[in-house]
């Protein structure tokens, strides 16, 4: 399930820490990037890799918003809906996205391309409203710039650094 290359990277990562369990969250990021989401099999693989119980790893993974225990789209759009972004139009952006993609926040387009997720403050309040697509910030977003971003995303012209 996990490529040798990734495994080699993880072997290196583990060495950074006095206790190898510390590498758990970075490993989950990496495995998620490779598998697409943290499937039970992926969790079990990580548990075996770190000699933890699968329930323990699942319990950790389920704590964090960026770790997905259910399948998600190829691209992930996070929209900040916290106070400053809301003051400056986040809900309008959300409605716009939902209309454009025909899905609600928290859902994935039927073609499996895009998932939408509401997020809490992304530390972009000075340039609100802000979103993240595949780990990259886009700021002072308007419905127009959003359309452009979606277009680029569909054409594979948007550079992501999804990890």
């Amino acid at each position, binding site marked *: 399930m996990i490529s040798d290359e990734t495994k080699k990277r993880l072997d290196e990562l583990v060495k950074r820490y006095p206790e190898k369990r510390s590498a758990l969250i970075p490993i989950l990021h990496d495995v998620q990037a490779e598998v697409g989401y943290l499937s039970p099999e992926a969790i079990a693989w990580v548990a075996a890799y770190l000699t933890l*119980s699968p329930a*323990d790893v699942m319990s950790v993974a389920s704590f964090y918003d960026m770790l997905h225990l259910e399948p998600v789209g190829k691209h992930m759009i996070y929209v900040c809906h916290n106070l400053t972004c809301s003051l400056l139009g986040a809900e309008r952006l959300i409605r716009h996205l939902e209309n454009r993609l025909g899905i609600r926040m928290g859902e994935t387009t039927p073609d499996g391309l895009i998932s939408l997720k509401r997020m809490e403050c992304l530390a972009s309040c000075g340039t609100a409203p802000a979103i993240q697509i595949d780990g990259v910030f886009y700021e002072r977003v308007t419905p127009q710039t959003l359309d452009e971003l979606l277009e680029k995303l569909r054409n594979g012209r948007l550079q992501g650094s999804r990890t």
Partner: protein
Amino acid sequence: MPTLKIDGVEVTVPAQTTIIEAAERVGIEIPRYCYHPGLSVVGQCRMCQVEVERMPKLAIACNTPVADGMVVSTRSPKVEKARRAVLEFYLLNHPLDCPICDKGGECPLQDYTLTYGPGESRSVEEKIQRVKHKVLGPHIVFDAERCILCTRCVRFCHEMPKTGELGVFSRGDQSEINLFPGKVLDNAYSGNVIDLCPVGALTSRQYRFQSRPWDLVRHTESVCPLCSNGCNVVLDVRHRQRGEELLRIRPRENQAVNRWWMCDEGRFTFTSLHDPARLRVPTWCENGRRAEMGYDDLLLRAARAIRRVVEAHGPEAVGCIASSRQTNEELFLVRRFFREFLGTPHLDFRVRSVQFQASDASEDGILRRTDKTANTRGARDLDIRPGPGGLDVAGMIAAASEGRMKALFVFEEDLVRAFPDRPLRQALGRLDLLVASSMFSTETTALAHAVLPALGFAEKEGSFTNFQGRVQKIHRALTPHVASQSLPEALRDLAVDLGRDLGGIEPEQVWAAIGERPGAYQGIAWKDIGDLGLLPEES
């Protein structure tokens, strides 16, 4: 040692004691959910908050060490408000189904709510709906709506069996106790989460809906008979018109033996006591025909047969194989009967390799032992072993097959199954008299001339000695079947038929005799054995 005051009561305790423990010493129970003395302290439920003079905030009693001169209040208005609030918060999402909950009547959430809780709910929000009846494993069923997230069950699985099946998934008010998909809660100690769960979220599949806790009329202290650890237990028996029923077995705290726990095998393996297949009436078999027979007739016939054997072949033609399932009292009487009255040296109890000294070991580093009988140590201490020139079990079997042994008594052991590679049928078939006692029909009872029904541990009064040498009492929780006698009664009557007097057979009387004899139990009387047992070397 620091001295402090709790609700005006002065108490002196060792440094590092926590307030909750110190309060316990003076009989003040501080309400708690997540705290359990057998588990790590997490301080999450916030129920045990107390007010400590000169501390700006309320302190959690489970994690605050005592200090000299400390003044603690567990009942100040501030404490009461905080406690009421915690209960109000719990009840926001707790179903109001106490009347149909297995925990009803013995539920700390219900109890504390009645004592300390808010009168009525101020919430009009909808309760969160969660999974109601999820089977977690062979013994446990889970109701997520009732769970108050104290994490006792999770910590138990991590810390005791170290199997870690359970986890808290998600966070905040989405948090839920669960298993990893496809896993089951089936560690050897899983049943303890039922006792630990302070609400009716984790319940026994066996016990579920069988009874209301207030139906239970009797709780009898006893000891688990299923291995040599001798975990202390309570037997909960319901009394109804159609009879008594053992509903559940729970561990009883004994720090020297089982702390607060017991294993699932000991907890859940008791249905055999109520099995309709149990032998209830003695039977006698002659010329291949087996018939029920009253004790008087049967014992007379047995006595006649014994007398014939002894007159023709001497006492060496009689042997007895006792069992480490028997109580100390039974074993003592057996020894007296065979060694002293009949005068045979052939007495033994060791039918399993594990019973030869030192091979009884911990099975898992926790509680379970490899000797699956309760009283090997007692049998050894009471010298249930061959006398001078006596045969051990294998020797007795050999002697029977060679025709040297003519009469054999086998108590609570299925010899045929215990020695599958020996010609047991042939050997036992040659005997003039085979007497076997047993709870169920076995291949051995099938060969016996006389079969006596044996009582289960819950029907006996007496004691076992666990592997440590601790003598522990078992008490009768269930009345034996009317047609069944205890082994001491049968032995006493058999002795009478042979013109001997076995003496008193009640535990006090037997111990008076045991205590007189040199050996491990010299000087010990029945009343010396307390609720938590007695370790002879400590007395």
